[in-house]
């Protein structure tokens, strides 16, 4: 049997095989999958049109539905999409349904927080950042509407077994250097197609010590290098997180065989890392904060949001830096917690009043301006420092604006100073 990476082992298990070879095409059983509001209405229509009026999904308990991109309803069509989701959930008896209301948020964060992500599973979403789930030793990847349409019916999908790049990070990160800085550094080094169609597997003592949420940040942005999935061995912190969100689950984590041959290996010393900033209009257009500071880049909006940069710890970092001090004149600071659970914890941990004291506006959870549909669109020639994952032209709603990406720490420091700094 050829040596297997953890990704190989998950795909082999899901395809009912003992082992798989890199480059092999296989059909894998899907353990969990989801779609969200921009996609579901079309998917629902196609599902019944293609597979018959009485068609049923393969397993309602292996499907989750989220309203995150277009809530609260941006317009009448958005509301129609939300109502289509109500109907589909009822017709197909999908219990894992998280509509706008008491318990909702950005799909990837909800997937993890609700215990839908477990080690060794194949997890698909109609969203590219489904690579996040590697933080919990799962194979998570994004697919499009037609893939998911078919998965909803048959519960399986074809994959090509990917080559694997090892990214090893050892040692202790300097203070205020976060997972976001590690992934931006990696993007700077390998570029937007550096891992095209491949797996990025993170190893090393730094990765083992990261908090569960920081591990999510790292895996989340592997797709920015074109990766099929990001993954890491289960750690104590990841186990503790799973014990909270899925207390009854049996965990069957996988590891990479010691003699497995990676297609490429990169090795970083955590001590050498520093805060990084991605410049418009590409997430791999990255400079160090030292270079950026010298350039004195003014920003008028600070956006703390998305599946990448608005988890509980991200917001806590922002509060710790601000300490109730006022943001610079002319700067608007938007904080968009990724889920209601995070919002609630902000209240319980007294993070809300200090943010308001600083002049922040706390928005309800959701994708919002991260992808430019609504809620924080930039003006012409305006620049924003964002804790999100993409800064493509027009990503935040205006092709004549500029988006810089950085960690929540840099975001908070920049909010106080009115220009990008640490």
């Amino acid at each position, binding site marked *: 049997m050829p040596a297997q990476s953890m990704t190989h082992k998950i795909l082999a298990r899901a395809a009912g095989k003992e082992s798989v070879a890199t480059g092999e*095409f296989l059909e894998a059983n899907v353990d969990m999958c989801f779609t969200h509001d*921009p*996609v579901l209405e079309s998917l629902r229509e*196609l599902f019944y*049109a*293609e*597979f*018959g*009026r009485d*068609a049923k999904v393969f397993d309602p308990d292996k499907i989750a539905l989220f309203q995150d*991109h*277009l809530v609260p309803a*941006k*317009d009448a*069509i*958005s509301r129609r*999409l939300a109502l289509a989701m109500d109907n589909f959930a009822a017709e197909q008896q999908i219990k894992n349904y998280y509509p706008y209301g008491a318990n909702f948020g950005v799909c990837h964060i909800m997937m993890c927080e609700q215990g839908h992500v477990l080690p060794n599973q194949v997890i698909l*979403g*109609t*969203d*590219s950042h489904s690579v996040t789930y590697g933080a919990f030793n799962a194979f998570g990847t*994004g*697919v*499009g*509407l*037609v*893939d998911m*349409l*078919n998965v909803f*019916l*048959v519960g399986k999908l*074809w994959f090509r077994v990917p080559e694997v790049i090892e990214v090893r990070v050892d040692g202790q990160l300097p203070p205020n250097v976060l997972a976001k800085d590690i992934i931006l550094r990696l993007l700077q080094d390998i570029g*937007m*197609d550096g891992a*095209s*169609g491949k797996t990025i597997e993170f190893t090393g003592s730094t990765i083992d010590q990261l908090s569960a949420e920081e591990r999510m940040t790292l895996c989340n942005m592997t797709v920015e290098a*074109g990766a*099929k999935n990001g993954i890491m061995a289960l750690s104590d912190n990841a186990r503790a997180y799973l014990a909270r969100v899925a207390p009854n689950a049996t965990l069957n984590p996988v590891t990479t065989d010691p003699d497995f041959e990676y297609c490429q290996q990169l090795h970083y010393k955590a001590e050498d890392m520093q805060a990084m900033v991605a410049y418009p209009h*590409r997430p791999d257009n990255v400079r160090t904060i030292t270079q950026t500071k010298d350039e004195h880049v003014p920003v008028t909006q600070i956006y703390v949001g998305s599946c990448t940069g608005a988890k509980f710890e991200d917001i806590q970092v922002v509060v710790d830096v601000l300490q109730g001090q006022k943001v610079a004149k002319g700067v608007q600071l938007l904080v968009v917690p990724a889920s209601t659970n995070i919002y609630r914890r902000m209240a319980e941990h007294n993070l809300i009043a200090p943010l308001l004291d600083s002049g922040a506006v706390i928005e309800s959870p959701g994708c919002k301006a991260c*992808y*430019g*549909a609504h809620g924080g*669109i930039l003006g012409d020639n305006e620049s924003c420092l964002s804790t999100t994952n*993409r800064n*493509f*032209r*027009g*990503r935040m*709603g*205006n*092709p004549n604006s500029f988006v810089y990406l950085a960690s929540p720490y840099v975001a908070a420091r920049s909010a106080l100073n009115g220009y990008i700094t640490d």
Partner: protein
Amino acid sequence: MQTLIQGKAFYCGDFVDTDVMSPGRFEPYEGRDHLASIALIDYQAEPPFVDPKTKNSPFTVIFAGREFGCGSSRETAPQALAYAGAKVVIARSFARIFFRNCVNMGLLLPIIYDHPFDEAIVGTEVSVDVEQRVFTVKGQEYHFSDFGPLTDIIQAGGLTQYNKQRLGLGA
């Protein structure tokens, strides 16, 4: 799948992302024509991919650089290009979800070819013979590789048709 495709060429550079193909600010879409009208709207090119007057594209074959369609999983990106009039993309490489979406939807044929073309090709008449796996530009023929294990899905017209035929499913 149509086997002989002919029409004018458009050119895109490297790393053209799905956000410039169908930007989030236009979501939710009002329908097919709306989607076609904004195809590649944030990709800066002269002339643009979609003619602002007709709201359709005069281009049938898109030549692209590396990692075409990087970014999000939105199927509206390949749909927008196809609804506007494109039938084929010939790229040096594709982002994986975009490539899957093209194969699965059967609307836009994704051909991987490490070609030497640039902006100069814009407007040139190109023909693509899908069965013979060759495309022709100014009398010169370029042969591309087959689709391997994906051939059956492409020939069926997409993943849904393929699964219906294979599993005897559906309406």
